[in-house]
């Protein structure tokens, strides 16, 4: 495996010599790795030794102090209809409040976590969760939030809030959660 700098060099060389294919060889930058979990939480084994690879991560940061009982800003979960990434009218007020908060607090950072219900295939549901997160992201940016304030991630059907297989559980699972990682 090669490191990033060598990859850039190699990619430039390819670009010089592989003219007809240059647009198919793409570079996608790696995700920011500064937040990665500590190595001492991870262990590996091979089949000879029989100890599992174990990863533990800390809990996530939840913003408080912005929640007032019943305020639009306290609505931090947006729900969706089946097979849809469309923002429903009943969540417009909440998203406008979050958008306004982001505009007023340029240092604030929010992560939009997209989810799907369990029906259908898992990796496709990662795509559905991502579409929902992107829809919320675009809505917030239309309110004036800047793209640097918003990160998206999709968990597909992997992190349901309700693991039952009925309509109520499905409704609860089709969601985007707004998780603030910095208040301001």
């Amino acid at each position, binding site marked *: 495996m090669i490191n990033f700098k060598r990859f850039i060099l*190699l990619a430039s060389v390819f670009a010089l010599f592989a003219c007809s294919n240059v647009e198919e060889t793409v570079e*996608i930058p*790696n995700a920011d790795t500064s937040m990665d979990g500590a190595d001492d939480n991870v262990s590996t084994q091979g089949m000879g030794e029989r100890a599992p690879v174990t*990863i533990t991560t800390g809990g996530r940061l939840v913003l408080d102090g912005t929640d007032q009982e019943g305020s639009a800003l306290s609505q931090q979960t947006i729900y969706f209809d089946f097979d849809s990434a469309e923002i429903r009218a009943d969540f417009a007020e909440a998203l406008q409040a979050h958008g306004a908060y982001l505009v007023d607090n340029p240092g604030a950072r929010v992560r939009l976590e997209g989810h799907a219900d369990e*029906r259908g*295939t*898992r*990796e496709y549901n*990662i*795509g559905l969760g991502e579409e929902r997160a992107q829809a919320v992201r675009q809505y917030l940016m239309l309110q004036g939030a800047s793209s640097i304030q918003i990160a998206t991630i999709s968990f597909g059907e992997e992190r349901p809030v309700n693991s039952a297989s009925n309509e109520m559980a499905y409704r609860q699972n089709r969601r985007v959660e707004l998780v603030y990682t910095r208040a301001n």
Partner: protein
Amino acid sequence: MIRRIFFLFFIFTALAQAQLRIEIRQGIESPLRIAIPGFAGEPQLSLLLDEIIEADLANSGRFYAMADNELLSFPTQPEQVNINDWRITDTDYLLVGQLDSDSFENLRISFQLFDIVRGEQVLGFRLSSTVNNLRNSAHRIADIIFQELLGIDGIFSTQIAYVSESTRNDQAFFQIVIADIDGTNPFVVIESSEPLMSPAWSPDSRKIAYVSFENERSEIYVQDLATGFRDRVSFRQGINGAPSFSPDGTQLALTLSGVDGNLDIYILELDTQRLTRLTENYSIDTEPTWSPDGDYIYFTSDRVGNPQIYRVEARPRGQIERITFEGNYNARPRVSPDGDSIIVVHQFNGDYRIALVDLETRITQVLSEGQLDESPSFAPNGDVVMYATREQGRGVLSSVTSDGRIHQRIASIGEDVREPAWSPYALR
């Protein structure tokens, strides 16, 4: 930066994994009746050999293993076989065997298979083994019998990788586990408090690729099974998903969203990290899988509004062709080992079922019978399909033969199991 994790010594915890339990739900009408009176030799070793061979053949749904109280005699040498004893009891096949154990490291197993209808021995075999390898030898014997009598390669020496979810300290806990195909010898490849998905075998069986959320985003790892070495092969911005090894093991097809926030299919050359984009479309393109000849990648796309299966030539500017036209939902393809058909998740009367689609005729045959069936995986002999489903609120694995006749259920005690990936034939 490549993260290299070196081996640390850890105690193997007994509560790590439960065993899988196999039951036949629907066998064929007239299974072959086979009698295994018992191998001669050291009693404990012989019993283990008998039990594994019987269980393998019976669990295939194609054999009925006769019980001891149905047998009239118990020959341990071919000369002792009286064909009439077996004709009277409607036995189709008789397995006679001898186990010589000079020492733990030096076992010699001999066996003879009799066709009772023809009244003669049809197979004689001898193999060397050790006490530690006795399970593997039993599976191999079952494979030989299966192949001889059915003309199909056996799968009793294969393994499955699967995802297991359980609860630890009130929190969800995820593992990727590899077990022998009879559910025994579970081995935890990796465990995490964040989701793990999409296990995929390398063609030489030495590595597993998978998706891990351990760094609060989706990333693809390739892990060497012998050493535990983890190679984080894709942690690009956005989504990294659905890894699939090429038939020669040098490339991964995968799903990325990094360039424009939209899921598309790419090929990653593992040695060089060279990335080739295969689809460029506003739809969700995901779940790529290679054809056995390496020429095509089949994938899921909802470019017409709902998920269907497409295939693209596995090269830059490859042509894209739609494959499925029947029904509103076809996703998560896997190609049969002979390249002639694909299995998919197919919506049928509101249920999510596993269906087989013939690539030449495009005829769709629904194989499974559940409501939330998903993640189908072909056995390397192409004869059986394993998949995940939900029963009574729990994730279980099931299998069905590719003609839809034999159904099996594989339950695990205490955990949700899902996303089975059947190993290739290559031995590590």
